[in-house]
């Protein structure tokens, strides 16, 4: 979870951000053989804090802006609550289904780093491969155009999927991963002690990823799983607390920034 999401949703300061981020899920890697599952995919992440009143309408308009004519599609919001145990984070929301395909994860964050949030942020995560595949009804993600002049997603990314699948499932050295996990955990603690929370959080993120790799490597037993999750969670919780404290020391500087879009009026679209 990117610091511009994880940390910025904490505390009272307003925040609006949108960025593309690769998301790695080692357990979903398929050696580049499955046309739909990827060990790494791209997301367009949007965080709006506090969550605006008309956020669903704006989201619907964003799909239309992408060229999806909703008059001929079936758009539904199905319950899907998001939870990241390693980050002490959870939220309530939906997976947005377009003609039966999940294209977006829409979440009202309730807690991150074990802290109750106020105000509440809304996070919209657009699954970019899904949406582009869907727009072209491609049978395989690897056929999607990376750029319009004929460079495909496969040409750019297939090797990445093959090699990382091998790494996650066959090659990754469990002992090295464990040591690295310990090392980053230690480094995060040191950073926290030095009062530098952003580097600390980065180390915590590395632990989270290492845990996922260990898990996909089949190296984690049930009990150890619980213990490792707790170790990463403890780091996340410590980072969250320290971040809020550090912002407070700075006087929550963004509180004084007027939201540029404040006062925007929506047209007559209802929300029923």
């Amino acid at each position: 979870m990117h610091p511009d999401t994880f940390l910025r949703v904490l505390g009272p300061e307003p925040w609006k951000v949108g960025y593309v981020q690769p998301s790695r899920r080692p357990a979903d890697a398929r050696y580049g053989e499955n046309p739909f599952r990827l060990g790494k995919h791209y997301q367009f992440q949007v965080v709006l804090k506090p969550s605006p009143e008309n956020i669903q309408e704006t989201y619907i308009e964003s799909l239309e802006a992408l060229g999806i004519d909703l008059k001929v599609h079936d758009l539904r919001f199905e319950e899907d609550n998001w939870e990241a145990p390693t980050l002490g984070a959870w939220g309530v929301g939906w997976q947005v289904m377009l003609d039966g395909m999940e294209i977006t994860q829409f979440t009202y964050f309730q807690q991150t780093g074990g802290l109750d949030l106020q105000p509440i942020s809304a996070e919209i995560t657009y699954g970019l491969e899904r949406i582009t595949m869907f727009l072209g009804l491609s049978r395989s993600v690897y056929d999607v155009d990376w750029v319009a002049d004929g460079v495909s997603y496969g040409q750019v990314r297939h090797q990445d999927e093959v090699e990382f699948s091998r790494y996650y499932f066959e090659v990754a050295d469990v002992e090295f991963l464990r040591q690295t996990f310990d090392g980053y955990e230690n480094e995060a603690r040191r950073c926290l002690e030095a009062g530098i929370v952003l580097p600390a959080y980065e180390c915590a993120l590395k632990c989270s990823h290492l845990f996922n790799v260990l898990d996909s490597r089949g190296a984690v037993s049930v009990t150890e799983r619980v213990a490792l999750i707790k170790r990463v969670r403890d780091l996340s919780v410590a980072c969250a607390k320290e971040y809020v404290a550090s912002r407070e020391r700075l006087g929550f500087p963004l509180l004084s920034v007027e939201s540029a879009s404040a006062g925007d009026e929506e047209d007559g679209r209802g929300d029923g």
Partner: protein
Amino acid sequence: MATGEFFLEVRCEEIPARMLQPAVKELATRAFEVLLSKGLTPSEVETGFTPRRLVLTLSGLPSRERDREEELLGPPAKIAFDQDGKPTPAAIGFAKKCGVEPTQLKTVNTPKGDYLAADVFTEGRATPEVLAEQIVPILKDLSWAKSMRWAAGQGPWVRPVHGLVALFDQEVVPMTLFGVDAGDSTCGHPIHSPRSFKVSGKADYDRKMTQRGIVVSYEERREQLGNQMEKLAKKLGGQLADDPELLDRLTSTCGIPGVVQGEFDPAYLALPREVLATSLRDHQSAFTIESADRLLPNFLTVMDRADDPEGRVRAGNEWVVAARLDDARFFYSEDRKKTLADRVSDLDHLIFHLDLGSYGDKAKRIRELSTSLCDVLGWNDESDLACEAADLLKVDLTTEMVKEFTSLQGVMGGAYAREDGEAEPVWQAIYDQYRPVSSQDEVPRGRVGLVVAIADRVDTLVGMFGLGMVPSGSRDPFGLRRAAQGLVRIVLEANLPLDLDMVAARSARLYGDRLKKGAEEVLADLRPFIQDRVRRLLGQQGYAYDSIEAAIGAGSSNLPELAARVDAVQRVREEADFLSVVLAAKRIANIVKDTPEQEFDANLLCESAEIDLHKSAEALRAKIEKAEAEGDHESSLRHIAELAEVLDTFFVEVLVMDEDRDLRMNRISLLQSIQRLISRTARLTEVVVDRSEHREKTASKD
């Protein structure tokens, strides 16, 4: 036009499908109850919902709350007036509080003495005023399975609220829910009919919603969807899979009831049918279509729109289904690289419970226990097969397919074992191991299936109880109630003469020193737990609770035998002689309680009534034992009932508490032996006797 109609619509972001029905039900019930308490009883209550709206209509409401006249009690009369008979400040204060003149106060006599009192009249408020006050607290307090906050911290509620319509006889009822004021306008579907429009009441609302294709009534929407799907399935030459739960779920995910039909590559039909059906149902909420016991390469699901003008909805759903099935095929082909038998050792790395060992350990215990069960039941031909089934029973937990679709555990193992060429009783035993999964479901097929299903459940129950993990309240993380329920049903329905105490004791021994409690202690906890399941099950079959209790009181470790004794009690319990013995049994229990067992000497009996009782009892003893040995519990109880007369005479003519200690103790001893004899089939003292009824029966007999 005043029809006393209150119309309420709450619009919000999409409420989870599973929460919608309970929510409108709770809203209607609580609104009804609160209005009832105000004397505002609606003649009709109607609810409706779509994912984005909850709707409640109460019609036939009176226009005002009822007026109330109450007598309020004030201070004691003696401090209410001074010597001159003038009201004291206490009286004046009370009058003021009640809104009356001091002269209108009266004195009433109460058990505590004379008190000042006032008749207070409160005029009923207009209905909209009551609604304005009562409805919002109910809405805010609906018990959602999960709620959230939004924006600056609004809520908690299930999802952000955006609109509120509240009308009483066409007039807006002023109320505010999370900053949203009630009004008289709403809107349709967010994409197809987003513009807002005014409504005047329920009929107008329904009409305008229908124009927009939205069906607010859940029942109507469900019926429309079901009909459309059945028609389409028929057209395809098949039949819709029978899955009312899926239809419930789908009905709650749309406001406009549209059905989309899709196809998939028939090559996927090579996958086990269970996999196809589960993938389509769990991942895509889609119905499969059956024809002559096989699936067609088609599916049906729901969309929140009326039509599919460019075929995009269909194309999209087919695209996703293909992806899902492709994934399932990946798991399947991964799994098929090894047989189940090749994977047995993988169970050693899969933890069943930290203190109870791996699934490998569990499999070995199930194997041993299954062997003993076959021994006890005399099922020698099944013993080897049961061992094979036990070895493979849990192996599917290590397969990719079960990791992906946990609901397929058991079924998947069975399907793989079938493909591995395992013997039919073996694969069926694996396939059926979690049955019965519901009260309608059946118990496992065949002896091997029964034996391993029992062994697995006993092993889990004994293990968890042995760690002190006895479920309490709603906490039952390991599903032990369900395991016990299944165990009881299997043993009863297959009519297996097993001594469950012995089976559990054997299971506890197989755990070696892993358990924290001794076998006796485990049994002491487990016995009442299993008895509870028996009570429930037999109660559901219509047996009176005291018949069940009486039979349990005489032993409960052999369940079919127990059920037969319950049935016997139920058959004879209305008979006069039997009831007479029941009353005698209660009397005996009172007399002998707390007295240790006494030596009995037949030579000390002196009165004819006690000699008669002793002789009759001795004469019946053999008959009762014989009937019991033959499992004829009804005859046994009838023999016991034959003691009615001699018992009655005994209690009329013999004084048990004789001054002579030896006589007294000998009579108590006689009664103790009678008590044992008549409690052979059922603990008669548990049977509840309506005494007036009993007298009547006795009288009519005479």
